[in-house]
């Protein structure tokens, strides 16, 4: 470390190597701060960036880099946090990820209030603005194509869960076959009852699987029919969702802004129809279109 660096104020960030953290793109000048009229003395702009509290003043503010009509929303971050080695280490720290994911999303949602956005995955980092511009240059056409698709649209997500015990109970009451078997078990001898019980359990299990597939499939198809694009994602296990019920559908939909109410109503109807059977619906939005801005499009389905 040079003498100059030793003497430098810790907050003199021109001496510190900074990297560029990319949040998203917009197709018009993004609004990144509160209007001046609302700002009181000492107040901070609306969006705080990825570097967090260690980095003071202007450097941590999201700003934008313009290139060919594309606006990249970015902020400066420190090497000691975001270099390849340090990033790898931090990515094993759940609390760090939780904090950074929240900031990433907050910035993008803030920008999304006034502009169409193309969100990037967490952790897209450049050494220089020139490199960022080069990336924009390399994919400019694909980004512009995405903006044409996304303008005036929103992403909404549907996660469907199943309370297995509740559904089993509903099936037990609904399925004639099973009701019949229960009667037979009641009047059967010990050995026969045991065998019948096993048979009943298997039938219950098979019916359960069929019903889950049916409800998941139906829910997806209904919303897909009301959307421009739809996508099915990996199911998340209970250990991740921390719920008592099992995820049976993880899906996302790209929808015209003025058609969103159709989906909300459709979900309400699904709830009315299936809640009693232990099927629970989480319909959330609007989200930045994470699921519909891939540079390669093979996973999306058209509605």
């Amino acid at each position, binding site marked *: 470390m040079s003498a100059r660096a030793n003497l430098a104020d810790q907050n003199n960030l021109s001496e510190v190597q900074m990297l560029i953290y990319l949040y998203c793109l917009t197709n018009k000048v993004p609004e990144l701060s509160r209007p001046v009229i609302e700002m009181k003395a000492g107040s901070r702009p609306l969006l705080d960036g990825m570097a967090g509290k260690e980095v003071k003043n202007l450097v941590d503010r999201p700003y934008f880099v313009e290139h060919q009509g594309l606006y990249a929303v970015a902020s400066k971050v420190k090497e000691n946090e975001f270099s390849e080695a340090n990033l790898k280490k931090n990515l094993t720290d759940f609390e760090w990820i939780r904090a950074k994911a929240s900031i990433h*999303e907050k910035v993008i949602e803030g920008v999304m209030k006034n502009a169409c956005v193309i969100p990037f995955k967490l952790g897209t980092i450049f050494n220089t603005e020139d490199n960022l511009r080069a990336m924009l240059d390399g994919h400019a056409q694909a980004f512009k194509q995405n903006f044409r698709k996304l303008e005036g649209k929103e992403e909404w997500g549907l996660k469907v869960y199943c309370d297995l015990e509740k559904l089993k109970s509903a099936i037990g009451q609904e399925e004639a076959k099973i009701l019949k078997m229960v009667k037979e078990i009641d009047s059967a001898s010990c050995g026969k009852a045991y065998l019948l019980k096993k048979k009943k359990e298997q039938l219950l299990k098979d019916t359960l699987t069929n019903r889950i597939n049916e409800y998941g499939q139906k829910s997806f198809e209904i919303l897909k029919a009301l959307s421009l694009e739809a996508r099915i994602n990996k199911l998340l296990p209970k250990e991740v969702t921390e719920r008592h019920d099992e995820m049976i559908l993880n899906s996302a939909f790209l929808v015209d802004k003025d058609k969103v109410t159709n989906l909300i109503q459709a979900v309400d109807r699904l709830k009315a129809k299936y809640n009693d059977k232990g099927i629970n619906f989480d319909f*959330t939005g609007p989200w930045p279109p994470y699921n519909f801005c891939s540079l390669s499009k093979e996973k999306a389905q058209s509605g």
Partner: protein
Amino acid sequence: MDDVITKSKDVTLLEVLDRVLDKGVIISGDIVISIADVDLIYLGLKVMLSSVETMEQLRGAPIEGPMQEPS
């Protein structure tokens, strides 16, 4: 409907992680790490998943159906 419709803060965090960790535009910047390789982080339990296989083991008997994302 300007706001994200959520039930609670925990629901939001799950939804955010389900998006920012491996969705959105995925290109190599200058710092090349793959969060997908780092795997999905469990909320609370802080367990690292290494594969779908591990997920199935932790969950018990898998629920099979057409609703899984094709790998």
